């Protein structure tokens, strides 16, 4: 047994988190910033934060993750990190020549109370920011929220670029939330198929799924350009996908640039994708293409083909709120029953949404925001499931409890493909179904006695 000290009996813990279902804000800010073209994320804190975030993102995306750090030492921690940051800005523009530096804070610089805006003004006055280049930043204290909050804060900070010229650009802003580069590509493709001109931000496609050609581009071809970010202020509207990841930025654009917004669920599964496409169509005033309607029909077809293997199967889910809400809805919609659902990210609304979605399910649901994977494991021990869905850390539970696992979420450290194959939209729905079915049927093939072993399933 790997998690041999996890007992079935659940005792309440108030202070100790065991096997977290979240990490800290700055890594989310770093991932978001990588979705701007020519942007170097900068971690304003001690070296370790940047090293850890780069390592974690590298292991998940299997791509180079460039980011710099203010390299605080004890002195900087006592006297403040402004001189470190000024020095860093100068060195970064001289050596790495990015278009943009996106600074995020850490628990260290937040506790000290460093003021990013003030430091930026000073850098500007001292001529450390070359003409035509940009420095912006977000406050991302690690002791508030989670990696999801950090992602949201950095995306919100991007709205600083938005300009209102008085002339609409006829485009729709889409804020995709923390999804894979392939998902961002898919969202753009769907918008295009719907006949909608869009600005997607952030956009890590073309940044974190780059080809191997013998040439290393520190700043790859992908990413939302600064020109596009500026133009978001002239868009006809904003669709924010996921309340936790994207709503704050959309609301900020509405407040600041009077771009109306609509907050939707992330488009995982049939219904959420339907709502996304429908919203796209309405906001842009277009008719949905036959091609997209065909993809939808194919997804419905596959659901019907596989339904016998899904019906009333119990699933345990762990991940981030936006993803979990959409996934829970998808599973419920295909008659799979998510019975244990955990996120480490705080937010009472999460539990409420999940309870609404699972209201008519034939089983009782365990749901917790600010939960951890130790508790999830204990729930599974008390009420076993047929399938577990979550990040790679789930494999310890999966092995101990002998439950099939579908890897989904962040981080995935032991499998490939998430960078390239989307799970959003109708096409992504097909892939999710394929993975779920494979996990369930591989298990059936393993467990069925020889006399019941079937050629055709």
């Amino acid at each position: 047994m790997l998690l041999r000290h996890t007992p079935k009996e659940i005792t309440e813990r108030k202070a100790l988190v065991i096997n977290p279902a979240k990490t800290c804000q700055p890594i989310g800010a770093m991932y978001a910033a990588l979705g701007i073209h020519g942007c170097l994320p900068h971690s304003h804190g001690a070296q370790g934060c940047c090293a850890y975030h780069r390592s974690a993102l590298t292991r998940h995306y299997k791509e180079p993750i460039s980011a710099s750090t203010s390299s605080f030492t004890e002195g900087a921690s006592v006297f403040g990190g402004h001189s470190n940051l000024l020095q860093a800005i100068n060195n970064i523009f001289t050596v790495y020549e990015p278009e943009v530096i996106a600074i995020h804070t850490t628990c260290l610089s937040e506790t000290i109370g460093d003021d990013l805006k003030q430091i930026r003004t000073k850098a500007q006055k001292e001529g450390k920011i070359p003409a035509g280049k940009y420095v912006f930043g977000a406050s991302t204290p690690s002791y508030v929220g989670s990696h999801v909050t950090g992602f949201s804060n950095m995306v919100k900070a991007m709205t600083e670029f938005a300009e209102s010229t008085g002339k609409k650009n006829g485009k729709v802003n889409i804020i995709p939330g923390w999804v894979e580069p392939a998902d961002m590509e898919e969202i753009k493709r769907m918008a295009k198929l719907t006949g909608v001109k869009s600005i997607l931000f952030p956009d890590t496609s073309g940044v974190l799924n780059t080809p191997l050609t013998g040439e290393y581009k520190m700043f790859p071809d992908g990413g939302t350009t600064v020109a596009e970010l500026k133009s978001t202020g002239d868009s006809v509207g904003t669709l924010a996908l996921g309340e936790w990841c994207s709503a704050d930025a959309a609301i900020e654009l509405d407040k600041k640039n009077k771009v109306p917004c609509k907050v939707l669920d992330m488009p995982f599964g049939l219904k959420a994708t339907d709502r996304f496409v429908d919203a796209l169509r309405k906001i842009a005033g277009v008719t949905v293409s036959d091609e997209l309607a065909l993809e939808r029909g194919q997804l419905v077809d596959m659901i019907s083909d596989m339904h016998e293997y899904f019906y009333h199967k119990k699933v345990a889910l762990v991940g981030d709120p936006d993803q979990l809400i959409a996934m829970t809805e998808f599973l419920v919609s295909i008659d799979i029953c998510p019975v244990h659902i955990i996120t480490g990210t705080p937010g009472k609304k999460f539990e409420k949404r999940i309870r609404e979605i699972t209201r008519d399910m034939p089983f009782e649901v365990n749901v917790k925001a600010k939960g951890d994977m130790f508790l999830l494991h204990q729930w599974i021990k008390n009420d076993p499931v047929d399938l577990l869905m979550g990040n790679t850390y789930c494999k310890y539970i999966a092995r101990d409890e002998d439950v099939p696992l579908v890897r989904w979420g962040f981080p995935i450290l032991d499998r490939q493909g998430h960078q390239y194959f989307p799970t959003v939209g109708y096409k992504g729905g097909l892939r999710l179904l394929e993975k779920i079915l494979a996990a369930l049927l591989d298990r059936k093939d393993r467990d069925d006695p020889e006399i019941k072993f079937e050629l055709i399933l």
Partner: protein
Amino acid sequence: MATMTKKKLVQWDPADVKAELLSKYPPKVARKRAKQIMINEALENETPEITANVRTTPGIITMRGCTYAGCKGVIMGPTRDFVNIVHGPIGCSFYAWLTRRNQTDPGSDGENYMPYCFSTDMQDSDIIFGGEKKLTQAIQEAYDQFHPKSISIFATCPVGLIGDDIHTVAKNMKEKFGDCNVFAFSCEGYKGVSQSAGHHIANNQIFRHVVGENNEEKPGKYKINLLGEYNIGGDGFEINRIFKKCGITNIATFSGNSTYDQFASCHTADLNVVMCHRSINYVADMLETKYGIPWIKINFIGSEATAKSLRKIAEYFGDKEFIDRVEAVITEEMPAVEAAREEILPRTEGKTAMLFVGGSRAHHYQELFKEMGMKIISAGYEFAHRDDYEGRQVLPHLKLDADSRNIEELKVTADETLYNPRKSPEEMKAMQEAGVKFKHYEGMAPDMDQGTLVIDDLNQYEAEKLVELLKPDLFCAGIKEKYSIQKLGVPMKQLHSYDSGGPYAGFKGAINFYHEIDRLVNSKVWSYMKAPWQENPQLSAAYVWE
């Protein structure tokens, strides 16, 4: 393949390469970096001076991590029966959760907290009002849930700033429990200049709170401690296999697959063998001063190095029977190693590699590459000190800067009852005259060729430049560097956590490494960088039928 090899025989002058590496920096950065880039002169113990263990310049994309990473991640990470609670916001504990590939065997006692991650998950209210109460509660909950032998606490950056007294909390809880050793590490990430400070802090606290707690005599004739071996990819398991075969009793490994009791009884061993000089030489020194256990530097990376290290241990104990047994083991193990080496040698000989890793690995692994006929054209450490480059003879000349002064230096004296010099001064002298070197490490530079580049705290920009200019066949560093190097079409091997491979230590490890490097430098994938139409773009737009 022949054309590829030919293309890489680039003529270069190390001084020009150095100048090129520095050319883009602002003048202040260039001056600083110039002192950390050394053109090796390869004179035995007279290597030119290199600057190391100094601050990384802000904004320069370093490979380094922080003090917390060195303390919790490296030293305490692979301790299996401690409940290691990280006091801080969630991230620090999350990132150090199973990411270093330390393998663990729960053994007969079955205690193993390695797959777990414990954190106090500090919130803003804890930062404002202090986190001591939450820490106390977390320790209590860990105790109630697991009843471990020991609970250790790790401070993260904000803990030091808000002034939580983690040591008093730990002391109080230890007294309260009575059967659980609770102690803490002030390993805030901002301390020191790299992971190295964290190693030192970890060593100090383990020495202060655990070493010497169990005086029970352990069975075994040739008792040693293996210091600075972290069982990444199972290295420690392979070394222990060899020890067992030789009749060597390993009392404690610092700290791969280690237990509380191993640390507690390590003072009962008769010899300390030091693998990673950088991370653990402090413990070796303290064990000698307090208990009289001498230490020697060994290296189990490379089959020849392994054989040499075993012979050193045998020589120390001096028993004919033991020496013969060690020789018999070497004789038995080497044919398989030789067979593997002969198989890969034609494909690896003459290839070049660069190593930028650790505080000792960039040195240790040169042994394996030499066995494969490969040439190291540049190497350096991420967090080493000058002695790791130039040898311990520079130690008296090292100047303590402000960053190093902040790291506690334990004052250790001979233990009144337990100090017991394992060898008399005469015996030590005789052994030294016979060539046994105690407390000796000559560093990496003397082992490297003249004109090679020795670079401290290499950064992303310099790494890319080096690869571009010198076109090595292989680059070795860590995960953060892996894919930027590979995008250049050069294979990259992680030597911190070995990608997914290992063990690479000992005899079987050498065989694994030969195969792995053979695979990397001869993989077909590196020839697919260009599509056929990119390789021959000059062809006219007509069909050519051959």
